């Protein structure tokens, strides 16, 4: 695709043409030629959308809840873009992306744009592809962007990190879910939701979650009751209080996605969190750390591509691997050898800078 065609595509996207938006997402998803220029052109038009990430174990009711949330935003007159990430088969690479089935509020409404994405086969990582797709929806003028993913692994955690607010969904009575939360998702949640709150065990799960969140809050919070001494202790207490005002304590909400109960509360909590980020200046912090992560990912991927090409030029990894296997050389020597031109170029640059 030519640069002119790319410019036209971006223009159409900014005009709100759904097909141009869909095409752009395909471009970034497939990393097809010239996609970088497209994303660059879009970047200046982003930053206005409120981005919510929703994660949770399979069957927790993510899609159904997202559908309700979309309906709520639509009733409020806001437009919504949804990116639903589904796992794909590690064997064939194929996937049945089923979230659309449960998103009834989207049909026949131009103010909702739902895009399904398979979790596999993304060069440069799923989180990069998702972040770029979020940018496309943002630039196209959607007020809200919801990113939905199964919270199964690091990949998915990285994906929801592209959001301003991360909602973690848990279903009642599942000790396993809470175990999973211990393993890392607890740290990334800004809002916790116990869905299917009409089932037995919901109150227990809410209590368990609150307890775990207390622990996560750290000692600062639990120590509050112990002050009363004078001098140093008082000073420390003031510091703690200040930290506390700054600290967001994640609420634990109850919803029944199938009836829509609690969805308004969820939308409210998401907005509260956004306000909190704004007031404390953390919105900016998050944007900065997100940008840093994106830059690092891109650099890693680009240098890997360069090295890969050099490797191909030298007959591919197979040839050198053969020599290493025969003990003619060793992996470190091979790596040093391959990277020598890169190192030399960087050394030269540093010498120029020093001079």
């Amino acid at each position, binding site marked *: 695709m030519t640069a002119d065609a790319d410019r036209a595509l971006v223009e159409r996207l900014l005009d709100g043409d759904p097909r141009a938006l869909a095409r752009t997402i395909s471009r970034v998803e497939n990393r097809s*030629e010239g996609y970088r220029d497209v994303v660059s052109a879009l970047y200046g038009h982003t930053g206005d959308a409120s981005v919510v990430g929703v994660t949770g174990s399979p069957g927790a009711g993510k899609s159904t809840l997202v559908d309700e949330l979309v309906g709520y935003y639509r009733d409020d007159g806001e437009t919504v873009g949804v990116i639903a990430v589904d796992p794909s*088969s590690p064997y*064939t*690479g194929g996937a*049945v992306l089923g979230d659309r*089935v449960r998103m009834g509020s989207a*049909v*026949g409404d131009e103010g909702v744009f*739902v895009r*399904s994405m398979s979790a596999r086969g993304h060069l440069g990582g799923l989180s990069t592809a998702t972040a770029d797709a979020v940018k496309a929806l943002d630039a196209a003028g959607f007020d809200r962007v919801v990113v939905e993913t199964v919270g199964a692994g690091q990949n998915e955690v990285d994906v929801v990190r592209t959001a301003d607010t991360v909602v973690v969904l848990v279903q009642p009575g599942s000790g396993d879910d809470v175990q999973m939360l211990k393993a890392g998702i607890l740290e990334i949640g800004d809002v916790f939701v116990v869905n299917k709150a009409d089932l037995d065990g919901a109150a227990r799960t809410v209590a368990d979650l609150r307890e775990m969140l207390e622990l996560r809050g750290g000692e600062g919070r639990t120590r509050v009751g112990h002050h009363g001494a004078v001098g140093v202790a008082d000073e420390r207490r003031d510091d703690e209080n200040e930290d506390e005002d700054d600290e967001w304590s994640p609420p634990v909400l109850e919803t029944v996605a199938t009836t829509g109960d609690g969805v308004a509360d969820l939308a409210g909590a998401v907005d509260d969190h956004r306000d909190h980020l704004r007031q404390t200046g953390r919105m900016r912090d998050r944007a900065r750390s997100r940008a840093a992560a994106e830059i690092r990912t891109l650099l890693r991927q680009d240098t890997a591509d360069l090295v890969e090409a050099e490797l191909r030029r030298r007959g591919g990894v197979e040839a050198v691997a053969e020599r290493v296997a025969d003990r003619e050389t060793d992996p470190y020597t091979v790596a040093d050898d391959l990277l020598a031109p890169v190192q030399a170029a960087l050394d030269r640059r540093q010498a120029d800078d020093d001079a």
Partner: protein
Amino acid sequence: MSAEQGQAESERDRPIRCLVAKVGLDGHDRGAHVISRAFRDAGFEVIYSGLHRAPEDIVQAAVQEDVDVVGISILSGAHNTLVPKVVEGLAEYGALADTLVLLGGIVPDGDAKRLKEAGVAEVFGPGTPMSETVQFVRENVPTRR
């Protein structure tokens, strides 16, 4: 540079995206499920529409998901009414040329002929081996750009 080579490769490896669609008041989705799985096992990305969709919903989903293939499953006999609406909707968005429209189900020969003239690429009746449908998709999926 190297990145260009990489991109050319990724373009070839791009998985085929399919929308498997049930339209109208037809609750028989076994066939749609079977074809979805067959497509998945063939390495395609499959988006399933769910039951009882209006033709406009299918068009909207096909456009937003930017699919290469729309496979419509109809067993109710309403194909003459519903299928042309999907085809026309895709044409309105300028998406028809990029989309392979397939029809599966019980469709009389005369209807199949008319629908093919209207823009359906192929009609697959009962008993069609999965491999045949998968092969047809692989050979006829539109090349982009």
